[in-house]
């Protein structure tokens, strides 16, 4: 390697280190369940405007994040799509107990890009389609809710061979969006601002409410940006955004 190249590399490394150190002061890493992607982005943008802190968002399935946090992933906040995993994290001593709260109640939708394909539960009962997209029911709460709803309607066994599984709700949505699956169970939040195709809002009586809980992780307990983000998430501005994306919000805290 030529000396000038080495110098240049060293310069780049030094620059990156500085940038890192600068940003560190008011930054928090947030693991966000995939269904909450759009809402979280908007909340993070307003959060940044109001507080100057920056929330760095990662998106994935709740199960994936749970495994990663158990393995010491550098997340400071976890916005799960369920209430079990945050509870388990607190039990395991990785989450701050009193920080848990329901930030959103998720709604399950059966959606197709094809107009008139989805009419209601009879669509599932007649089952005249080849592929039904869901997300991994073990790793993703919306997948579990979809399975529960199909079991309530007693169509699970007949539909099961038609399942295609996304690793998370974003992928389940994408299978339907690209038309590779005719229809699929997605989160209502994913259809915000999208009037296309046909849809059926799955009645709440068919599945256990998807209580999406946030938890402050021990890694973020002393981080100013992290605690500020949790507070912001409970506030009226964030709640308005969450409602806009088709969630119900829990009682005012």
């Amino acid at each position, binding site marked *: 390697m030529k000396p000038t190249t080495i110098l240049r590399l060293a310069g780049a490394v030094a620059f990156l280190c500085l940038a890192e150190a600068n940003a560190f002061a008011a930054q928090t890493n947030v693991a966000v369940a995939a269904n909450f992607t759009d809402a979280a982005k908007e909340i993070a943008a307003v959060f940044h405007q109001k507080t100057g802190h920056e929330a760095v968002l990662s998106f994935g399935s709740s199960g994936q994040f749970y*495994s990663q946090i158990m393995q010491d992933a550098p997340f400071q906040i976890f916005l799960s799509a369920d209430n079990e995993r945050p509870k388990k994290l607190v039990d395991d001593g990785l989450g701050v107990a009193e920080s848990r709260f329901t930030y959103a109640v998720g709604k399950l939708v059966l959606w197709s890009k094809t107009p008139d394909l989805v009419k209601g539960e009879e669509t599932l009962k007649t089952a005249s389609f*080849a592929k039904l997209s869901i997300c991994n029911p*073990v790793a993703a709460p919306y997948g579990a809710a979809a399975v529960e709803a199909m079991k309530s309607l007693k169509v699970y066994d007949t539909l099961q061979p038609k399942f295609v599984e*996304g*690793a998370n709700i974003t992928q389940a949505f994408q299978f339907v969006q690209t038309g*590779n699956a005719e229809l699929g169970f997605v989160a209502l939040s994913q259809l915000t601002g999208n009037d296309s195709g046909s849809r059926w809002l799955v009645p709440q009586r068919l599945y256990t409410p998807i209580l999406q809980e946030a938890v402050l992780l021990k890694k973020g307990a002393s981080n100013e940006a992290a605690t500020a983000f949790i507070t912001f998430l409970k506030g009226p501005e964030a709640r308005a955004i969450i409602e806009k994306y088709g969630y119900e919000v829990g009682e005012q805290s």
Partner: protein
Amino acid sequence: MDGLSGEIWQPVRLTIELAAITTVILLIVGTPIAWWLARSKAWWKEGVASIVALPLVLPPTVLGFYLLVVLGPDGPGGLLASLWGGRTIAFTFQGLVVGSVLYSMPFVVQPIRNAFAAIGDRPLEVAATLRASPRRAFWTVAIPLARPGFLAGAVLGFAHTVGEFGIVLMIGGNIPGKTKVLSVAIFDYVETSQWREANILAGGMAVFAFAVILTMTLIEKRVARINA
């Protein structure tokens, strides 16, 4: 262990099937391409070589994304699927074969091309003076001489298909017995905190990878000895 072994072996079997079929197709399709790349004097041949080599550089997500669109109902894949009343080639074993063939192509073509190139003109010219037709010379001279290249290509193509993950995740749909191959099964086990199963499969993969690399090294050594 018994209850679990069925569930564990299914992805293993599926992966081996996928890799074997992909390797056979690649040897059939890849050999003429490799031959042409090694022998042709066309000025645009390195362009073709670069296209074949694209998967070496492209993230699997790029291929996965394109395949999802191309195999789907709005692409040629959907048209093909409609022949048997289907709607898409995504989420099928055949779809995975298409993806794997594209993805593993450079790993098969490259070693065969190199082997063909290493033969040089001389043996083929000699064959011609002995009145062997070009076709006969190809089968009786070029192919046997390039055998280590075929071996290396087959091993690498097989191994690389076994190790494929991103594309399968994107176009597979995680269907047990059809598209849930080893790498996806491991991902699944880790995501759902079933670490014992993940450990068994991941450990097996590590041993397999070691065996592949060792085999490749031994093949190379042998080739070096033959050439020396």
